[in-house]
């Protein structure tokens, strides 16, 4: 027993000698590691300071908001601004919760529709390879290189023709088939093993069943990623509601926030604007923070081979 133990003990340090040396280095951070962390700290401050200011201003009581000299860090945090924002109707006849609903509703519907349409399409393209699949994909890749602003006018004319101007659908329909989303899912689809799909086919499964019950679960990282990006884009979208929405009651958060602020370019120090900014900014960050792992898994396949 003892001999065996001794032998093991002796055996253990020998091969790990080199690793052990490295590990020793790890514990005492090297100069280059310290420099890297220093650089990262500076970047975190640059990235985080405006967000920190945003959080503080949302929590500031009235007397701190208008203080001179201006104060960055909140001393006596309060939720008063939020309750004011969500209960008062002072600035308009539409309650703020309605804007939250508008944003949430249009964003969630767009995200779900986009996931369905893009996953169906990308799966069909990759796993059924219909004639012209390469050409279709080439067009999608080409469409990555221009912004949606380019097609705004024809889109507006179509939406107008359908009688959808100033409706939720105007914010949803044009943003379902997005090249970026299709591209991500398509790249991820490439590595789905054909054998599983083939096995299901031999068992007599219907194509839609295979897609829904077998492919979609395997594509989960791809479509959760798509959900994150699509959520962030649509939640933050300012241009579409600016173009399509006229009535106050249908405005989404970015547009409503601008109204609350008193117009573009107006400095608004009120606590309600601070709270509204906070509520508009936070959901995207939370959604991303929760889904980060899945997003990274999908982004591994995001490269374009030219």
């Amino acid at each position: 027993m003892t001999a065996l133990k001794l032998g093991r003990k002796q055996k253990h340090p020998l091969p790990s000698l080199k690793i052990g040396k490295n590990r020793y280095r790890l514990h005492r951070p090297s100069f280059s590691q310290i420099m890297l962390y220093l650089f990262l700290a500076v970047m975190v401050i640059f990235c985080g300071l405006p967000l920190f200011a945003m959080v503080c201003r949302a929590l500031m009581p009235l007397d701190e908001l208008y203080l001179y000299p201006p104060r960055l860090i909140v001393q006596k945090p309060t939720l008063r601004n939020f309750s004011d924002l969500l209960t008062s109707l002072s600035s308009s006849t539409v309650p703020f919760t309605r804007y939250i609903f508008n944003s949430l509703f249009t964003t969630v519907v767009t995200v779900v529709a986009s996931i369905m349409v893009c996953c169906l399409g990308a799966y069909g393209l990759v796993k059924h390879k219909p004639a012209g699949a390469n050409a279709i994909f080439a067009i999608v890749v080409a469409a990555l290189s221009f912004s949606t602003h380019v097609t705004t006018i024809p889109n507006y004319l179509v939406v107008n023709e359908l009688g959808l101007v100033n409706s939720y659908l105007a914010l949803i329909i044009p943003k379902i088939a997005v090249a970026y989303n299709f591209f991500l899912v398509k790249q991820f689809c490439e590595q789905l093993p054909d054998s599983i799909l083939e096995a299901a086919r031999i068992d007599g499964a219907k194509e839609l069943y295979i897609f829904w019950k077998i492919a979609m679960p395997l594509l989960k990282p791809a479509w959760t990623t798509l959900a994150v990006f699509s959520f962030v884009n649509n939640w933050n979208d300012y241009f579409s509601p600016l173009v399509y929405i006229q009535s106050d009651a249908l405005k989404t958060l970015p547009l409503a926030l601008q109204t609350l602020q008193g117009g573009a370019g107006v400095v608004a120090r009120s606590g309600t604007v601070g709270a509204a900014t906070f509520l508009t900014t936070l959901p995207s960050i939370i959604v991303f923070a929760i889904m980060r792992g899945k997003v990274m898994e999908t982004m591994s396949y995001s490269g374009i081979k030219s």
Partner: protein
Amino acid sequence: MTVITPKKRVGGLQEWLRRNAVGYAFLAPFLILFSIFVIVPVAVAMYYSLTNYNMIQSPDFVGLNNYAQLILDDDVFLTSLSNTLVLAVVTGPLGYFASFLMAWIITLVKKGRGFFSLAFYAPSLTSGVAMSTIWLILFSGDRYGYINNFLLRIGVIVEPILWTKDADYVLPVIMIISVWMSMGNGFLSFLAGFQNIDPSMYEAGRVDGIKNKWQELRFITIPLMKPQMLFGAINSIVGAFAVFDVATAVAGMPSPNYSAHTIVAHLYDYAFTRFNMGYASAVAMVLFLITFVLGRVCMRLFRDET
């Protein structure tokens, strides 16, 4: 042989249908929406750009008149073009290299990768319009503005600067905000790319005489990351030329002396306040051509030789 060939020819169409029907069925929803809202609109916008069209009368073909007017007579357009180019040239590459550098550094550090990537990516998740309320308070032109207050206190300036009202300062302020928001462009793609490089590649590199991290980056990492770098580059270009939200939200619309007028702002102005769809389409086409051509250039640049 003679029996098989005619059989193939007879069943040609049916056989073709049978082989492609499922794929097209899967692709149909995407292709229909994608055609209506992305592909056909490019052609339609191209056509409208050659007409006078106010949505009431039918389009009136005027050849290249709109383009001639844009370049020869429209000083505001030229201002918007130069503003957009200045913004894009500074923020595009800066954001791109910052995210590449950050992704690289984050993969080099041993601890806190998740935290650093979230902190660094968070600004990209925010709404430009929502955060503008904070930026306006930070850059407010009076002594209450955090930045003015700070600069006054350390004695760099004696008079508060009208950051968002003075035409000389508006563009740099928007640049800072855009860089803050665009540093995440391509970041996730790069991060995933870095993390997926097989460590044995670096081992092999060391055997072949690679001495330090820079050489590793230059000779191993970058060549392997080309597809991700292309994806990031195309997204950066599209984002950099589509500046609108932040510029309008911070400087107002119209901005003082058109100092923050961008191509998209000009497009919006002519399309949706004047309903001069023909002229606005010509503006859209200029935006399309710039980003599309640059996208093509990038595809050349990052061509994967392997």
